[in-house]
Every structure is written in C-alpha cells, then in structure tokens.
C-alpha cells in the first residue's frame, strides 16, 4: 500500500498537488499542503502518481505505507 508524503523543505506552495489529488490534499491559508497520509486505495494511486510527477519541485512523494 502506498501513501503520499511531502518534503516540506522542497515544497514552495505551487499547489498543483491539491488540484490533482483533492481526496488527500488540501491547502492551508498560505497555500501549503495539508496531507491525509493514510493508505491510498487502488483507484487513487494513478492520480497520486500524476500529482507527484506534476510537482515542480518534486516535493510530493509516494512511499510505502508502513
């Protein structure tokens, strides 16, 4: 099972992730992501990968949900 995680140092609040994966990511009042880091159901994985690829600073990561 996978989950999303953000590298908060790399993140500069472009906000693409929240657009592409609203089921798991919302933005705070300054534009920074608030993540739901629970395991991704199968049907969300493709969008999660797209979101991670779309991040201009590669701050969004997919990793195993341990």
């Amino acid at each position: 099972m996978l989950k999303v995680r953000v590298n908060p140092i790399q993140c500069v609040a472009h906000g693409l992730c929240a657009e592409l994966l609203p089921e798991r990511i919302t933005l705070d009042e300054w534009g920074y992501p608030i993540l739901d880091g629970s395991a991704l159901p199968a049907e969300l994985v493709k969008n999660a990968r797209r979101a991670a690829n779309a991040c201009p600073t590669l701050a969004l990561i997919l990793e195993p949900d341990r």
Partner: protein
Amino acid sequence: MTLLPRLLSGVADGDVADLRSHLEVDGPLPDLRRRPPAQLIDEIERSGLRGRGGASFPVAKKLQAVSARRRAKVVVGNGTEGEPASGKDRLLLATRPHLVLDGAAVAARAVGAGEAIIAFSAGDDAVAAGLAEAVEERRAARLSDGVRFELFAVDDGFVAGNESALVNAINGGEAKPTFGPRPFQSGVRRRPTLVQNVETLAHLGLIARHGAEWFRETGTNLDPGSTLVTLSGAVTIPGVYEIEHGALLTDLLDHAGLTDDLTAVLIGGYFGSWLPANLIGRVRLSPRALSEHGASLGAGVIVALGGSACPVAETSRIADYFAAESAGQCGPCVNGLGAIAETMAQVARGTAATTAKSDLARWSSSLAGRGACQFPDGATRFVASALRVFARDFDDHRRHGPCERCSAQAVLPTPMAMAMAY
C-alpha cells in the same frame, strides 16, 4: 547510602574536574576492549536509560539501530544546548568533561565507531578550552579510549541542536534540519551516526562502571536513574539540579526557595507546557508521571512564574523568539509561527481582532507534523498551553491592553543573538 549526586559528584561550585579528580571521584572506566559490544548494549538496555536531550528515546534501541548498519560508525555527543533556559549540558561539559568523554567512548565501543565528535556551542570559550584540555590529558595519560575524539563548535541557535541539523553542520552545511535519511542511517560523512545528548553520555560513563542495577537504584521503575534539571524564574537559588526521577516538584521548589507567589510552572522548557500553581501539589518529575498531566520533562527545563510577571507578555516574547528562530525552510512553520507572533503581540497590546483567540487556536493545532523537524510542534504546544492556562489573562489583555506587570523584567530568557538579527 546517598544515591545522589551522581553526575554532579565532586564538582561543588562549578569546579572543573580534571582527570585526576575525575578518577578519584568515579574510579577508572573499565577496559572497554574486554566488553563485547552486544554485552554493553544489553547492560544499557537493562538499565532502562533514555535520552536526556528532550525526546527520551530508549538509548539501547538507538545503539542497536546504529550498530546494525554496515559502514564504519560515528558517535556525536550533542552539547549544543540551544534551549535558552537550559544550562545542564554546558555545566557538564565545563565541569565534568571526562565523564562525558567516558560515555562517548562507551557509546563508540557499543556501536563500533572509531571516532566521537563532541559538539558544543561556539560562544562558549570555557567549554571549548576545557574539552580540549580533557582530550589532551587523556592522550598524555595514554587512556585506551579506543576512539578518536574530535571537538566541533556550532553557532548558537535553537534548531542547531536538532540531530539532523547538527550532522548537517558537521558535514559542512548549515545547522538546519534536513529531510531524508536519518543520522542513524546516513549521518556524518554519510556514515551511520549515533547522536546522543552529552548528559546521556555521562550516564553511560557511570553505567559502564557500576552496572544496570546500580543505575536503577534511584528513580522509578518506569523511569529509572537520575536526571539533570535547570530551574529558573522566581526562585532564590536558580541553576542545575540533579534529581532522581519521580522527585516531587514541590520538593525541588522548596529546596530552591520561591521568591514570589507562584502563578504557574513551566515544565519542559520552550517545547513544554504550563502547570497552574494550584495543580502542582502532587506532580512528580518523571516522563511517565508528567505524561499523566499532559506534560513532558523534555530536556529538564523548569521555570517558576511568579505573580509579579505577566504571562501574556512572557508568551508574546517567546512567540517572537520562535518566529525568529525558525530555520525558515518550511512554509507552515515560517508562516504559522509568524502569524502566531504577530497576533500574540496584538493581544498583548490590546489591538487584536475578536477572532484572535480562535485564530491562535487554529494555528496552534495545524502546524504539528508539517515541518522538517519538531520545532513547530514544540512551539505550538507551548503556545496552546499558555492560551489554556492563562486564558483569563489573555482575554483581559485583548480587551484592555497591557497590564502593570507587562513591563516587569523578563523571566523567560531570549538570547541577545535574536536582537542582533534585527
């Protein structure tokens, strides 16, 4: 039989224990070459020793994690002590350097490291000189420490003592936390690195001599041993005290002598929380006992807030300090702590919006876990606690502005370095 002092044995009034007096007080360290690493780790596990840097992580677990890695290991003794109201690490390094070096040698033997780096605050010339002399004394006495000691001075700063920040600084980078592999996986020169607070190392120096059972003779079953606390604020005798885990907070305050009516006590320093005076009656100073009050001993900082101080002015000043000390790497921390400081200042002045209380509550609960380190977590814990315990004072200030105690002398220290940054 007196069980205390242990770490502070033989160093009345800040005397420096040179090698000779160190050996007189504690005897020699056993020959570590005759102690298999696994046996050492087992002894430390049975002692129940937890880290004294604030996180209270089981030491044996950390030793095992580093020991299990493949490459040559490195030990780092963290004596940077970025927390302003804390003085225990500085005191240990200045007066008992040999006990800290003993512990570093024990840790190095346990994990299989050939080098031990002792990190301390760059502003501290006395510590630097004392450590250098202690290393030289051991060399001249041909002590077989089995490890090469190095000293590393770090510029002051609250986050500089964070493990990954310290390792980053040693590697030539900034003293700012990093994301990615943790020091135990990849640290100094990408080697598996054991980072331990210098007080933790000092305990190791004594456990190696006297054993796990001895360590457990004081303290409680769940939190064995002694620990150093730094007490300040409205007390006659502020300073570093060695206590047994489980000691009554009121006993410590009686011993130090209160100089004022007590309003509240800060437990755990700037990442800690406030206990109102009427609740401190049966509070015992151990991680387990404090967790039942929703508090944490942290790195042992305890501040008594007297009736002549203003909790709102104090909290506002610390909120400013937090905002200035952020490493500035993560949006939620920079923005969140900035907003908290700004709004807190408005509350103190009486110019805050009516939404100030709910804004502060919202920010205080939305930053945790969203930075690269625990700085926003600790800072918001402190702020949330102040908002709760001093709710009436905050309301009064928001409505009516500063009180007569606002201009009283500051109780919680915020180092001059912050002023220079402006």
